[in-house]
């Protein structure tokens, strides 16, 4: 790392005014070699955020985009390989049409279109140009090229004249913009940079996008685009200034929520189902509240309080609403059915996010708890450990004794572990999951299963625990938890798992994270202001042997850059 980069870290440190963070500048950022530029498909949430930021939250977005494939533990990484299928494009097209219709309807057009046409019954090139210049910059995360702008203006003008309506033209043109790859993919545009190791660097606008999707999960705002246009993001001072501005924005909450939704695989809530005969307290409202409770707890803890990440596993503070009150058997007094702060008593059986309904219900079966699923989730999601796939050739009759008396999950799983082919994996998962057995499939507390008292004791990688609460303490103390978070947050930011040349950098992040008292905000800031996040190599050679050009090298010059 250069001396300048070291200074940048210290500048950021000074801005945080954090004693923990001051120690973080003890080591310079290790040099990294980056990866080829790529393009990532917008997630549904990013798509929604952009549309709402550009046109307002009243714009309805009804549609179901193709699911992304979770790769290396994150959808953000899968987005790097996601194509647009025919069905997917059809959906994007229909959603785009719906959005464009709403933008030009009677209710919105005077607000969302910055000018009025001279004659609304025909094309108005000047007004159309103004609209597409502004909106195009917001949607593409960079100014439109001359050619792109002409395409939008010409297309909308033709429609306006043919159909006899300026706003119809804008509607059709906007639909076109919303289905281009420049909008649907986050693109790593590059430009020549003789000072960079690989001879190329991300353009300022591409850096702005990378930064904005990391911190806010949406496209860059005006100020960030202006900083990109001015070249500020290529300087340490300019980058740190923007990082700090964005870290202090209320939008940071949205970015942190998006990361944890991905990190904890909360998309699974979409398909969560429980048997309401077995669990009468369960409802769709309760499930939605369970997800929100997890995210409210996380954001309150790591953003608002800037408290240590491992304490998420032990904190007694959370939020409750009426739906969760029925699950937790806690009276919720707020009359409007909204959220209220709640602190579990010191002697309560629960502490931390792993004893909340969200985690407990997400990693259970519809009609029963699952120590295996819960243990696997802890290993894979929170400790970044791979639990091998189950072997195919298992004869369950070896340990399924139909004449055995009613047993607890521990009894059943102990039987599993007698089969050598099963034991290896079940020993990884079950000792963790059994610690949560005092909570049923929807997270309700219980002391017995089928009349037999539940024994929730065990050990986590040598850290003994007696129940879920002390298991939570063991997770708090586990060195793998912050290391995993560091690795995944960098993967999330870069859209790929760290490469070989980045291992030292990840260790550097871990060390700084630790020295900061495991402040997630410090980790996030270190990643966002690092050289590593923006480091790229030359694009891959094209199949026809033509070296891939950059947007800036192409004939279409970016406007206003």
């Amino acid at each position, binding site marked *: 790392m250069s001396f300048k980069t070291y200074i940048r870290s210290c500048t950021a440190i000074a801005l945080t005014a954090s004693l923990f963070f001051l120690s973080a500048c003890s080591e310079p950022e290790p040099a990294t070699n980056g990866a080829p530029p790529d393009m990532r498909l917008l997630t549904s949430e990013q798509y929604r955020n952009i549309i709402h930021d550009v046109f307002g939250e009243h714009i309805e977005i009804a549609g179901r985009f193709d699911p992304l494939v979770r790769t290396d533990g994150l959808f953000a990484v899968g987005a790097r390989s996601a194509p647009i299928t*025919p069905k997917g494009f059809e959906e994007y097209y229909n959603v785009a049409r719906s959005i464009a219709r709403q933008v030009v309807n009677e209710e919105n057009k005077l607000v969302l279109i910055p000018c009025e046409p001279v004659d609304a019954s025909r094309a108005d090139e000047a007004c159309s140009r103004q609209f597409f210049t502004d909106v195009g910059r917001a949607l593409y995360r960079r100014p439109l090229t001359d050619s792109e702008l002409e395409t939008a203006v010409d297309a909308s003008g033709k429609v306006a004249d043919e159909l006899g309506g300026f706003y119809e033209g804008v509607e059709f043109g906007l639909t076109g913009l919303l289905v281009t790859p420049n909008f649907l993919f986050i693109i790593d545009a590059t430009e020549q940079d003789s000072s960079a190791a690989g001879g190329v660097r991300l353009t300022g606008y591409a850096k702005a996008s990378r930064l904005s999707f990391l911190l806010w999960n949406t496209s860059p705002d005006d100020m960030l685009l202006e900083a990109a246009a001015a070249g500020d993001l290529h300087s340490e001072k300019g980058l740190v200034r923007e990082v700090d501005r964005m870290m202090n924005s209320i939008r940071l909450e949205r970015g942190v929520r998006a990361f944890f939704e991905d990190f904890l695989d909360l998309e699974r809530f979409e398909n969560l189902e429980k048997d309401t005969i077995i669990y009468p307290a369960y409802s769709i409202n309760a499930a939605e509240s369970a997800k929100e409770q997890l995210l409210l707890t996380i954001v309150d803890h790591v953003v608002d309080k800037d408290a240590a990440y491992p304490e998420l596993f032990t904190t007694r503070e959370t939020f409750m609403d009426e739906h969760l009150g029925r699950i937790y058997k806690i009276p919720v007094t707020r009359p409007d059915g909204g959220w209220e702060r709640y602190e579990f008593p010191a002697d309560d059986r629960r502490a931390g996010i792993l004893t909340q309904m969200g985690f407990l219900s997400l990693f259970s079966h519809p009609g029963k708890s699952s120590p295996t699923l819960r243990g696997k989730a802890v290993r894979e999601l929170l400790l970044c450990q791979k639990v091998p796939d189950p072997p195919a050739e298992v004869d369950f009759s070896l340990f*399924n004794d139909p004449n055995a008396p009613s047993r607890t999950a521990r009894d059943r799983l102990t039987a599993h572990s007698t089969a050598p082919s099963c034991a290896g994996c079940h020993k990884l998962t079950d000792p963790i999951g059994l610690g949560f057995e005092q909570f049923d499939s929807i997270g309700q507390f219980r002391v017995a299963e089928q009349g037999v008292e539940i024994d929730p004791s065990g050990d986590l990688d040598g850290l003994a625990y007696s129940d879920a609460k002390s298991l939570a303490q063991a997770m708090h103390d586990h060195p793998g938890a912050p290391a995993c978070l560091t690795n995944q947050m960098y993967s999330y930011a870069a859209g790929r798992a760290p490469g070989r040349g980045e291992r030292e950098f990840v260790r550097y992040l871990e060390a700084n994270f630790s020295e900061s008292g495991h402040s997630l905000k410090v980790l996030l800031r270190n990643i966002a202001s690092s050289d590593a996040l923006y480091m790229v190599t030359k694009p891959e050679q094209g199949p026809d042997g033509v070296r891939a050009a950059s947007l800036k090298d192409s004939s279409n010059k970016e406007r206003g850059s």
Partner: protein
Amino acid sequence: MSFFIPRKTSRRQMLRSLMGGGVVSLALPFLDCFLNTNGTALASGAPMPVRFGTWYWGMGHTPKRAVVEKQSTGPGIEFLEETASLIPHKDKMTYFGNFNMPLDGRSNYTHHSGWVVVRTGSAPEAGGDVPAPTLDLLIGDVIGEGARFRNLDVTSVGIARENYSARNTYNRAGAEVDPVALFDRIYGPEFADPNKADFKPDPAVALRKSVLSAFTEETKDFVKTLGATDRQRLDEYFTSIREVENQLSLQLQKPEPNEACVVPERPREQKEDEYIRVREMDSVVDTHKVMAKILAMAVACNQTKIFNLVFTDNFANVRRVGETYTHHLLTHEEAIDSEIGYQPLTYWFNKSAMDGLATYIDILDGIPEGDGTLLDNCLVMATTETNYARLHTIDGVPAYLIGGAGGRVKQGMYVAGGGDPITRVGLTAMQAMGVPVQTWGTKSLETSKPITEILA
């Protein structure tokens, strides 16, 4: 759950109403006069379109309770109690028994390798891996032109990811999970009823197509800026655009009259208490029936030539109300009843799946087309991922080909695989559908031997 009631309009009723209404432009419905004398081709000489579909159920069969295993290929399938509901249709299908899945040392990724091998001819290298295109898409590449949707993918278990049609691991569209959304996608404002008396193309549609083309042209320059991998993804993007452009083009053309096409009634929206029960087997059965009817009519109405329906997913995330275990968990955890010799609850789920298949066949076979039924002009491949779910066995995985494929396949056959790779079934299906493929599959799954005994 409401079911649509087909609005059957007799020719006399239509003429009377048209005359009474004073409509001047008149297009006759798809009548016998549009067919050749034996009802197997359109009067224009073009053959009746042949379509391909897949149907999927999870967890295979209960051993010795589904189909009597035979040592030789020949006419006659002997269904047992689990498949009893298929008996009325036994002459419209072929059963494939004792075909194997050699994995060449690669892992059997439970409940995944099975479906991937059957549908792609290649074994996955990891859980979630889809190493090659599924055969429905390969068939669609050959016969899919001319319909509004290149393929329609539907699942009745409420999970969009549960779609066993994919180009590769990442290029795997989400399936339709909601009957109302499925209906609206097919029969919404863009649907051109082939039997509607008058047809007026909407000028806005041509403009939409023109605008889309303009932006597509503009985007093509952008490809030059990308690396090789991303160029491939952009190629897929352009292919997808062409599908929508094709849809817009079709909206500008008057569809050929089609008597078989009767627009179904829009299903009602699901209520919350139904949504929460989406994977209870009773609910799955209802949803499947509604969606199957919508899908079958979409085929009859020439909205697609490739149609994929998932009854239950490969992990059978379905349950019976009040039971703590899902179908999948039961296959592993339920004890074998020593008196009857099998797992009774698991059997109940397996039988429900076969009842669902029978319902689907009823629906396809209940739509008249030409001098036969829609089923006669379709080939539906019904597959699962395992032979015996309790042990994750993949050798001997059962498979069915249902329908006449426009006379291209023989029906009512039992085909004894003799341990041959299951890819022979897929190769046969592709050749029957006109795909110019001589060899299919990789490594030990590679085959160039179609099952000639069933090719007509």
